[in-house]
């Protein structure tokens, strides 16, 4: 056995623990702050251990909201974020899998054109065409609707590419066998392609769920009504520039609630997360 280490084990352990500590410390502090009274935080006297106001703060955050700024309960924002993330994840996967199926399993005029039309959108993130896209949504009357916050983000070149690549690896014999059994394109999709794609769908789900949950600029532009806000943009409106007014314990509880779902998805679905991340970047 050749020794491929480049230093003693304790060095590796201590470097990794330092990394973990630096990554986790801001979240720990956030949690601590969400369990203390607002006065002790704004005095700059917050201790480094949790206080006793956990239930009170989280109850107020979820059901009442920050009183001095927006009055929207964070529970409403969480619902909006969940709807947005789910619609985007499911929508992206659904329309990408059928368009990849069309491109791989059919021959028709303009097949290549269709593929490139989808492919080139990789280079056009919403951040570089903010106002014209906003105008389209406004013209269609979709401001302050779930359709407006989700549909423009549903097109996905990466998901289409991933499915296309995967379909290419499915042996042709499977299609030939299905055809002999008299299966048409829809039955072949339902009985063969879809079951084989389950791991790819799971991987894409993790990535696109996080993408949808963490959207910032788009919901910021499209929503004006407080009850349409997602949690990621709602939190910003709770921070008042003159910090005396900011209810930091509520802000910090909101931050915890905003992080929990996507972090849980990554940790619980780690295998698919890694697969999704590595393969969508190919």
């Amino acid at each position, binding site marked *: 056995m050749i020794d491929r280490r*480049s230093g003693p084990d304790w060095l590796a352990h201590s470097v990794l623990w330092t990394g973990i500590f630096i990554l986790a410390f801001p979240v720990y502090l956030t949690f601590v702050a969400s369990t203390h009274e607002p006065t002790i935080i704004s005095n700059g006297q917050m201790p480094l251990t949790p206080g006793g106001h956990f239930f009170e703060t989280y109850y107020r955050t979820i059901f009442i909201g920050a009183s001095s700024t927006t009055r929207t309960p964070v529970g409403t924002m969480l619902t909006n974020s969940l709807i947005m993330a789910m619609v985007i994840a499911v929508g992206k996967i659904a329309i990408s899998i059928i368009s990849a199926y069309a491109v791989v399993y059919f021959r028709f005029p303009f097949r290549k054109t269709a593929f490139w039309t*989808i492919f080139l959108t990789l280079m056009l993130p919403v951040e570089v*065409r903010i*106002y*014209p896209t906003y105008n389209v949504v406004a013209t269609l009357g979709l401001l302050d609707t779930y359709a407006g916050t989700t549909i423009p983000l549903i097109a996905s070149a990466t998901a289409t590419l991933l499915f296309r690549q995967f379909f290419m690896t499915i042996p042709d014999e499977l*299609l030939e066998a299905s055809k002999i059994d008299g299966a048409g394109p829809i039955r072949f999709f339902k009985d063969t392609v879809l079951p084989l794609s389950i791991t790819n769908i799971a991987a894409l789900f993790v990535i696109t769920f996080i993408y949808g949950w963490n959207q*910032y600029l788009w919901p910021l532009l499209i929503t004006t009504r407080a009850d349409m806000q997602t949690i990621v943009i709602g*939190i910003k409106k709770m921070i008042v520039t003159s910090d005396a007014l900011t209810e930091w314990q509520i802000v910090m509880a909101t931050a915890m609630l905003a992080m929990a779902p996507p972090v849980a998805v990554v940790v619980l679905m780690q295998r698919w997360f890694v697969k999704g*991340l590595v393969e969508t970047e190919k």
Partner: protein
Amino acid sequence: MEKRAFFKEKWLPYALLLPQLAITIVFFYFPTVQAVYQSFLIEDAFGTSTEFVWFENYTHLLSQPEYYRAMGTTLVFSAAVTLLSLSSALLLAVMADRQIRGAGVYKTMLIWPYAVAPAIAAVLWLFMFQPSLGVVARGIRALGIDWNPLLNGTHAMILVVLAATWKQIAYNFLFFLAGLQSIPKSVIEAASIDGASRTRRFWTIVFPLLSPTAFFLLVVNIVYVLIDSFGIIDATTGGGPAKATETLVYKVYLDGKLGGDLGGSAAQSVILMIVLVALTAVQFRYIERRVHY
């Protein structure tokens, strides 16, 4: 690569492609064309009349010192985040790649920040560094430094760099680890039989074999800073103080919204798009090369 077996239905493939293509055309291509068109127009303050002015928005933009300042800010920001997050992620990945106890647990505990939204990451760091109540700010002030990211431009930049780096380490770590684990063990064993020391093995074998991954990550990180930094900057500094953290993407947003200068904002969008297309093209050339390895 093409399939030998396929279906011959005439209309079905178009129906399957329709949703994706419709969204793409309505929400991607049409607004992009609009942005290009708008960048050639000047609209008066009330939106009542527009004039086609060719490249005037661009020449005006390129004559403004503020634009170069935003460019400089973007460069400093992306260089700092890329350098910091790549080097710390590489260090962590090299350590996690060793056959030590608990390697799987370490991996889980290092990748979760990927899931945190940039704006939320920004709020966490703002809270720690908030001059009057932040725990870390208290420590810095105790050292005698007048720490105040709300007033001092350099301090504000440090804050957004730290928040952006914190979030990006997880992504880089994962790709470096995958890169390290794909290096054949036999190569490293051969070198150690030849008597190469651990450090030498890293710099002469592991590091060069990792360079495609590093290059790929470099491009991804630059794009991340260019685009995703929006949430970080908007949630912490709002481009301030005194425009010290106003990056190119943030300026597109501010000029179009508060400034009402849609033509100028569109011209900036077009320039950013060109930069992105160039970066993506570079990335694809790299992928082609990787396939030939």
